[in-house]
C-alpha cells in the first residue's frame, strides 16, 4: 500500500521534473518559431484551466470565456498605449479588470442554469466583442491596437517565453490549490447535484458567482500574457470562435482532470498548426475532432489515459494476487 503510494508520488514528481527541465531549457535547443508555439500553448493551457474551473469542476458550461480573456488583453494594451502606465501595473490590472467584468457578467448569468446560463455567457461575450469592435476611439475598433510599448527586455521571444512560463506556472499552481481545497470540493458537489448542495446549507448561487469571478481573473491573466506576447490586440480575441477554441481544449484534454486543458492545449495547438500549414480547411478537421471526442472520448485524452492506466494496474494486481498461492 505505502509502496504503491510512494511509486505513484515518485512517478508524478518524476514527470513534473522532466517537464520542468524541458520547459526551462527548450529555448536553448529549439527554433524561435517553436518557442513561440509553446508559448501559445502555455497561455492557452492557462485559459483552458481557468475555463475548466467553471466547466469541469463547477459544471457550468460557458460559451463566453473569450470575452473575459479579451478584457484582460485590452486592459494591458490600453493602459500601456493610452495611459503609458508602467508595465507591471498594466499587467497586474488585467486580471483585476477581468474579474470586475466577470463579477458583473456573472451576477446575471448565475441566475439561470444549464442552457440558459450558456446562452447568457455567449450573449455577454458578444456584447464585449461589439464594444471592442465599435469603440474606435478607445479600443481601436477592428484595427485593434498595434505596436504596444512592451518593455525592451521582452522583445526577444526567449524572454517573453520565460515571462509566460513563470506567470503560467504560478497561476496553475494557484488553480491547483483551489481545485483541491474545500472550495473545490464544494464546487464539485454543486456540479454533481445543485439541489442537494443547497440542502447541506451551501448558497449555490454565491459559489457559482465566486467561481465565475475566479475563472475570469485567470482568463484575464491569460489575455494579458497574449497581449504581451503578440504586442498587439484585436477584437478577434473576444470572438466566440476563440471561446470555442478554449472549450475544445478542455474537452480534448478532459474536463474531469486538472491536467486535461493543459494536455488539450498542447495537442490542439500542435495539430492546428500542422493542419493549417497544409490546408485552409482547418475548421473542417476541427469539426471532425469534436465529433470523435464527444462520441468516443467523453473524458478526453487525459481521462482516456487514466482509464487505461487504471485497467492496467487492476490487471497487474489481479495477476499478482494469483501468483501468491
Amino acid at each position, binding site marked *: 500500500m505505502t509502496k504503491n503510494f510512494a511509486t505513484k508520488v515518485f512517478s508524478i514528481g518524476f514527470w513534473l521534473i522532466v517537464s520542468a527541465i524541458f520547459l526551462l531549457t527548450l529555448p536553448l535547443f529549439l527554433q524561435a518559431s517553436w518557442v513561440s508555439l509553446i508559448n501559445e500553448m502555455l497561455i492557452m493551457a492557462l485559459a483552458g484551466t481557468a475555463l475548466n474551473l467553471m466547466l469541469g469542476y463547477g459544471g457550468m458550461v460557458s460559451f463566453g470565456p473569450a470575452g473575459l480573456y479579451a478584457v484582460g488583453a485590452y486592459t494591458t494594451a490600453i493602459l500601456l498605449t493610452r495611459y503609458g502606465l508602467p508595465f507591471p501595473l498594466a499587467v497586474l490590472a488585467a486580471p483585476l479588470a477581468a474579474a470586475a467584468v466577470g463579477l458583473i457578467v456573472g451576477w446575471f448569468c448565475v441566475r439561470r442554469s444549464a442552457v440558459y446560463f450558456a446562452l447568457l455567457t455567449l450573449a455577454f461575450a458578444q456584447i464585449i466583442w461589439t464594444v471592442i469592435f465599435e469603440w474606435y476611439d478607445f479600443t481601436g475598433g477592428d484595427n485593434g491596437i498595434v505596436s504596444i510599448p512592451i518593455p525592451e527586455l521582452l522583445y526577444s521571444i526567449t524572454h517573453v517565453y520565460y515571462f509566460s512560463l513563470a506567470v503560467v506556472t504560478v497561476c496553475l499552481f494557484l488553480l491547483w*490549490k483551489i481545485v483541491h481545497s*474545500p472550495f473545490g470540493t464544494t464546487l464539485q458537489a454543486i456540479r*454533481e*447535484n445543485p*439541489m442537494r448542495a*443547497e440542502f*447541506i446549507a451551501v*448558497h449555490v448561487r454565491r*459559489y457559482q458567482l465566486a467561481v465565475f469571478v475566479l475563472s475570469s481573473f485567470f482568463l484575464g491573466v491569460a489575455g494579458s500574457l497574449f497581449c504581451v506576447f503578440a504586442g498587439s490586440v484585436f477584437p478577434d480575441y473576444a470572438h466566440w470562435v476563440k471561446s470555442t477554441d478554449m472549450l475544445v481544449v478542455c474537452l480534448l484534454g478532459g474536463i474531469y482532470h486538472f491536467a486535461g486543458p493543459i494536455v488539450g492545449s498542447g495537442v490542439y495547438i500542435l495539430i492546428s498548426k500542422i493542419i493549417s500549414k497544409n490546408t485552409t480547411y482547418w475548421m473542417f478537421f476541427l469539426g471532425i475532432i469534436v465529433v470523435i471526442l464527444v462520441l468516443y472520448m467523453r473524458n478526453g485524452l487525459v481521462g482516456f489515459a487514466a482509464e487505461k492506466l487504471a485497467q492496467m494496474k487492476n490487471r497487474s494486481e489481479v495477476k499478482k494476487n494469483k501468483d501468491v498461492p
Partner: protein
Amino acid sequence: MIFETQKLTKSFGGLTAVDEVSLGIQKGELVSIIGPNGAGKTTLFNLLTGHLLPDNGKVIFQGRDVTRLPPYAISRMGIGRSFQRLNIFPRLTTFENVQVAVFSAQRKCHRLFSRAQNMAQEETETILESVGLLDKKKLKGGLLAHGDQKRLEIGIALAVHPSLLLLDEPTQGMSPRETGQTTELIQKLVKQRGLTLIFVEHDMSVVFGISDHIKVMHQGRMIFSGKPEEVKNNDEVQRIYLGEKKP
C-alpha cells in the same frame, strides 16, 4: 414545539396539492406521514424545506418563521433532509460526499487554499461509520448499491448537524433485509443524536414499527393524526388507505 405549520397551502394550476395543512411536532418525536401516491407528501416536504413557496400559510421552526427562506438558509438553521429520488454526489467518493457536508457545517466551504484531503477526517469517518459505509469510503458514490446510496444520503443529511431530519421514503426500493437494517439505523441515530424525525414512508411495517405519531394525508389534506394504534383503528383511514392494501 420544535416545528409547526399553519394552514399551509400550495396549488399547481387547478390542483391543490397541499390543502391547509397544520401540524405540530414535539422535540424528539418520530413522526411519519403516510397517504396514497399523489396525496401531497413530497410537496409538503418541499414546502417545509423552501424548495417550493406556499401560496398561503406558515412554516415555523424553533419559534422562527422560515416560510420564505431559501433552502440553504433553512438547512443552515438545522433542518436536514433526504430526497425521494436519490440525491447524492455521484462522481465524488463516498468520503467526499459526507466531507463536503461537514465542510459546510463547519463553514469551511469558502476556503480557497487549504488542502481539503486531510480536513474533517475524523468527523466524516464517524458519520460514515454510523451509517455503515466506512469500508466503502473510497468508492465513488454513484457506484454504490442502491441501499448504500440511500444510507449515504442519510449520512450527508446528518453531517450538517440537523435538529430536525426529514426523510422522504428512506427505505424505498430496498430489500426486506436492508429495510430492517435501515429502520434500526434510523432509530439508533434519532436516539443517539436527540433528533426529531419526520418521514414519509410506504412500508407499513416501518411506519408502525418506529413512529410515535402517524399523520395521514389524502388529496392534499391532513385527514388524521394520532398514535399508531389509533390510526390502525380509524375507519376512515382504513377505508381510504390501509383498506386498499387488504385483499
